[in-house]
């Protein structure tokens, strides 16, 4: 009998200690709340040849967030800090891309320059942003958030300067593909973009030692330097990857609205990305990471956002709820709270033994 209870407890512990357990529970709770509120939440129909439904909408709208959260996971794991400039980098990348496509005009109906050049230029600029952040963090040892705070405030200003303070419109159907649909394919393109990014990063991390190195640097930077890893270079690299992914997200976001709106592209997304990383079970002070967790976290956040919008919460008020969620997660993650909770559990166990005696 006792063995059976112990066995069951062991099994229970095995499930709850899985890294993806908490993120999946969170996602499940959010989805459950949605199903109760709107019974046809999972219904997917085809209207005008495209898939249509809440779930598709969440995946579609959340694809930028998924892309960002992957970069944020790597940065968090390697440097123990977050990159809060991702939203601004998105705006800069979008501004560069649109400005090159329109050839400097405010609105255009044809590409002035080839699309590929514009996208490559946008990627280059976002890599430059990443190099700037990475240099400050890895070489000059500045706390990651202070270093990225510089671009966080200056980035949108730079984007405004690039677009000359206006919203650049690209009214070309080819440009809308990335944020819309490819031909008659019923699945929105941003979902493909997100899946592609996840697969590429995942393959790189699994097939090379990069993931292991990043975890090493995050857990103990000086020890990994003594082992022979170039920890500064690795940190630098994660910031470049993060900004490059922010650039990808920026182009997707700008293609969605076929324009470069320097003030609103990626607004408040840095918070969502950090939240996704935290919800995914990654510890915000660095170390081990799980990309799958972050992706699930990102989908959860987007589902939460959509739910809140459905409950008629305005976009300005959303951060209140997200801030509360962040605080709850970091409190649950904090070692002191864990010790306190463990103390409670062992106390109860001790009481149980005493009661049995």
């Amino acid at each position, binding site marked *: 009998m006792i063995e059976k209870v112990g066995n069951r407890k062991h099994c229970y512990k095995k499930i709850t200690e899985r890294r993806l357990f908490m993120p999946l529970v969170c996602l499940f709770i959010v989805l459950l709340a949605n199903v109760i509120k709107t019974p046809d939440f999972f219904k997917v129909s085809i209207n005008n040849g495209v898939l249509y439904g809440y779930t598709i909408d969440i995946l579609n709208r959340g694809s930028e967030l998924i892309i960002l959260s992957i970069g944020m996971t790597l940065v968090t794991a390697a440097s123990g800090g977050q990159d809060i400039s991702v939203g601004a980098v998105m705006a800069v990348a979008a501004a560069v891309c649109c400005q090159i496509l329109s050839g400097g005009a405010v609105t255009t109906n044809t590409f002035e320059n080839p699309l590929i050049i514009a996208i490559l230029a946008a990627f280059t600029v976002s890599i430059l942003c990443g190099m700037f952040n990475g240099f400050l963090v890895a070489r000059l040892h500045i706390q990651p958030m202070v270093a990225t705070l510089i671009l966080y405030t200056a980035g949108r200003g730079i984007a405004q300067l690039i677009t000359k*303070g206006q919203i650049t419109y690209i009214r070309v159907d080819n440009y809308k593909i990335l944020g819309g649909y490819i031909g008659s394919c019923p699945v929105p393109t941003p979902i493909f973009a997100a899946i592609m990014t996840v697969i590429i990063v995942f393959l790189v991390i699994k097939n090379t030692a990069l993931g292991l190195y990043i975890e090493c640097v995050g857990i103990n930077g000086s020890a990994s330097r003594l082992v022979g890893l170039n920890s500064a270079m690795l940190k630098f690299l994660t910031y470049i990857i993060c900004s490059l992914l922010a650039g990808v997200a920026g182009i997707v976001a700008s293609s969605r609205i076929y324009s470069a709106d320097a003030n609103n592209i990626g607004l408040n997304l840095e918070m969502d990305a950090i939240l996704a990383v935290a919800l995914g079970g990654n510890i915000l002070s660095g170390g081990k990471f799980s990309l799958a967790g972050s992706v699930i976290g990102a989908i959860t956040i987007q589902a939460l956002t959509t739910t809140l919008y459905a409950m008629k919460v305005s976009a300005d008020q959303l951060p209140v709820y997200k801030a509360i969620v962040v605080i709850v997660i970091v409190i649950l993650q904090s070692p002191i709270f864990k010790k306190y909770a463990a103390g409670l559990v062992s106390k109860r166990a001790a009481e149980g033994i005493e009661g049995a005696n």
Partner: protein
Amino acid sequence: MKNRRLKKGINSSTFLLMITIILFFTMYIAGMIIYSDNGFAKPQMFLNLLISNAGLIVIGCGMTLVMITGGIDISVGSVTALVCMSAAYVMENKGCNIYVAVAISIVLGGVFGIVQGYLIAYLDIQPFIVTLAGMFFGRGMTAVISTDMISIKNELFLKWANCKIYLPFGSVNRKGVYQQAYIYPTVIIALAIVIILSFALKYTKFGRRLYAIGGNQQSALMMGLNIRKTKMQAYILNGFLTGIGGFLFCLNSCAGFVEQAKGMEMDGISAAVIGGTLLSGGVGTVIGTLFGVLIKGTISCLITTQGTLSSWWVRIVLSALLCFFIVLQSVLSSSKKKNSR
């Protein structure tokens, strides 16, 4: 002998402060020479710097305290917006008088300080994460109160806001009329806070505890200092100062709206850093922060006087300056490490 004394006198923090003061005067004198027809040379121009940045001075002082302990607070901009909005809301929509508004402002700042301080000091959560959440929370709550702009028409408030205190000097304007220089009461409050804090930091136990904790947490702990309590106190004081600063900001803007004081956290941090406060903690003065704020004011003044540049340049120049000072700090501290080896 003399050389050694000189070396002792100029350590890295005073060196940074000296650079800041020199930079401020160079910029101001350059402005006076280039834009002398626009009234840059008048004493009122300098006083205007203080008038328009009174709130920022107080907030920068709070930021300095927190940064001396090695922490940071990026929620100040949002708290300022929340304070302005709540003050405007209770006065305009609820018909409360101005004293209630003042009390609410200070209490709001204090509550933010207590909650964030508790999370940072007693639960060991990174200050950046906590205050980032605080930043979004504050901005969101501002939108919850009202998404429209509320301009304040309370008589007593406007009387306070427009109460000019004339000084015994002045200048002659273009038409040849003598104009006396004036300041607002906000400037006096801000300067009083700067003076009180700089004394408190230097001569009280609390101030020395702050420096000790920021300098080396481990040795401060071994000395028997209560680190958690001191950190908490620093954040609470910072919260109250943000509340006061927010109200001073409100007296200057006379309105509450969601986008208000956006990027103010950046202004506060850069003022402190430019004024010689180290990001790693343990070093910093309130007087330095005052000069940091004045530099920020001069930059925005120069750019608006220039006329053709967009207002975004203020942010960009300030960020570049912050970046420069951070790099300087890092270079100085690394050279110090080499010397000590």
